[in-house]
């Protein structure tokens, strides 16, 4: 067990080195969410409740950033599978599960950096910062990122030698996941079938809780559901990811 922990830490440290060396890359990776924030937010009407639209929209963009960053991350592994550095690590004493778990855990770091940037960018505008809530939401989002990252790595391993498969699956799932989680538009008044899809999407609960927590409220049921949704994503991701890594050669 202790080898698993030290192996995982070693893998995570290696994965984080490019992040520390080139922190700007973390910003480039979030161009898309920032574009949504800049171009979409001004179009939003004031909320019926009288709250600021930004207050509603920003948490969704934060969740979107987490989903995008973590779902793209498998492409890094794919690059390493092509170059040969994945093979080299498979021959090293690092355990297969650690090669997956260390990578998935690392996803938390760029995600937190991106959340910090978004919050810093919007706070001067009509967005009330509730630091405690943001930090609590960051914990849920961390768990979610680990799960999505692990799934992305599993997809990369399954797509060995077939890049198109990774990108097709990732792109096909990305926007339905975002839209049915109510990131861009609220799901209120959605037709029944869409409502069901939304309820089955674990990200829905992550987005709902992020909104509540960013507003400085702590509704126990919403938060509990989001933790369950994120934990389920993480458990599924790690299970599938470790299986895929064990088969990797």
């Amino acid at each position, binding site marked *: 067990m202790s080898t698993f922990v030290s192996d995982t830490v070693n893998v995570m440290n290696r994965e984080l080195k*490019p992040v520390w*060396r080139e922190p700007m890359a973390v910003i480039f990776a979030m161009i898309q969410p920032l574009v949504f924030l800049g171009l979409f937010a001004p179009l939003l009407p004031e909320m019926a409740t009288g709250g600021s639209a930004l207050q509603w929209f920003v948490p969704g963009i934060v969740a979107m950033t987490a989903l995008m960053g973590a779902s793209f991350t498998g492409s890094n592994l794919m690059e390493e599978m092509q170059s040969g550095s994945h093979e080299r690590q*498979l021959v090293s*004493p690092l355990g*297969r599960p650690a090669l997956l778990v260390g990578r998935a855990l690392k996803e938390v770091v760029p995600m937190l950096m991106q959340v910090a940037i978004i919050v810093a960018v919007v706070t001067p505008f009509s967005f009330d910062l509730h630091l405690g809530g943001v930090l609590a939401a960051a914990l849920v989002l961390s768990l979610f990122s680990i799960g999505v990252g692990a799934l992305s790595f599993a997809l990369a391993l399954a797509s*060995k030698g077939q890049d198109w498969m990774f990108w097709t699956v990732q792109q096909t799932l990305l926007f339905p996941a975002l839209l049915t989680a109510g990131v861009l538009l609220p799901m209120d008044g959605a037709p029944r079938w869409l409502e069901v899809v939304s309820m089955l999407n674990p990200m829905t609960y992550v987005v709902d809780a992020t909104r509540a927590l960013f507003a400085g409220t702590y509704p126990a049921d919403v938060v509990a559901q989001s933790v369950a949704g994120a934990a389920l994503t993480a458990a599924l991701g790690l299970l599938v990811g470790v299986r895929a890594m064990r088969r990797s*050669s």
Partner: protein
Amino acid sequence: MAVMTINHRQNTTGPAIVTRGLTRHFTSRKQTVEAVQGLDLEIGQGELVAFLGPNGAGKSTTLRMLTTLIPPTSGSASVAGHDVVTGQRDVRQAIGFVGQGNGAGHRQLGRDELISQGRAHGLSRADAHRRAGELIDDLDLGAVADRKVSSLSGGQRRRLDIAMGLVHLPRVLFLDEPSTGLDPQNRINLQELIQRLHAESGSTVVLTTHYLEEADALAGRVIVVDHGRVIADDSAARLKSGLGDLVRLSYDDPAPLARAAARLERVPDARVEVSDDTVDLRVKDGSAMIGELLADLAADGVPPARIEVARPTLDDVFLDLTGRSLRETQQTASTDTEAATNQTQSEVAA
């Protein structure tokens, strides 16, 4: 210069590698490709061994089994005293591996990768830093170690890959086609580097190559592989000397050519082949009997118009063993095995 010594965690008296009936099949589209068939090998500690053979001969598959990347279909292998299936982690701890691609991640810095590799092998943070520094000096990577790997030239990356394979002073170092993709100058530099590291460390070095010159120049022992089987296993010098020199006599007219051929048939232990305008004589130490031979032919009144003497090459050895030239085989190499390897890799449980 870093003085390297072997990791003495295991007894170093036993053989470094033993295989018994080592076999690997790949199945693709209901066709079974027997990539490696019943390999029985014993490689001693400190040997420098080259697996030579055309593409698809089973060299890389053998290496992938010995380095725990894929399990054998049947048979067994032990490396540094550990079974490649039941003792995977011990094997991985004991070996260095330089694959066909780049071991160093392209987004990483060379020095970072050396340190990470050291940490993966259980070196302390301080030791990993120190060892990375030693290897950077020893392999002349000082100017590029703190640059992103993607910006390095092919030769620099190869040296970095080898440095990574040496971080933990491995008992056995495997190199899979190390010189593929390098220009001739870098290839020679690499061969010198491998020979120097082998001499300094006393590690066992096993490499695969389809370059005849490389196997010839580099390895103390050449294992010639074809269609998944070992077809020869000896030092390059002995493999070649068994074959003899090639003496080629050219004639402008057919009449003296026939008489010369008849005369040459009387040379003991020689093989004679006649074509339209040449007579080929394949005989041990042919270069030493040239003078006598020419005098005899001149005395018979059939001196050759031109004469060539060629020492045997490993290609001649391969040709002699298989009836095919390794150089030609390379061009039209059957890629069956490789295609099958790619197809079934996802099915292979590690």
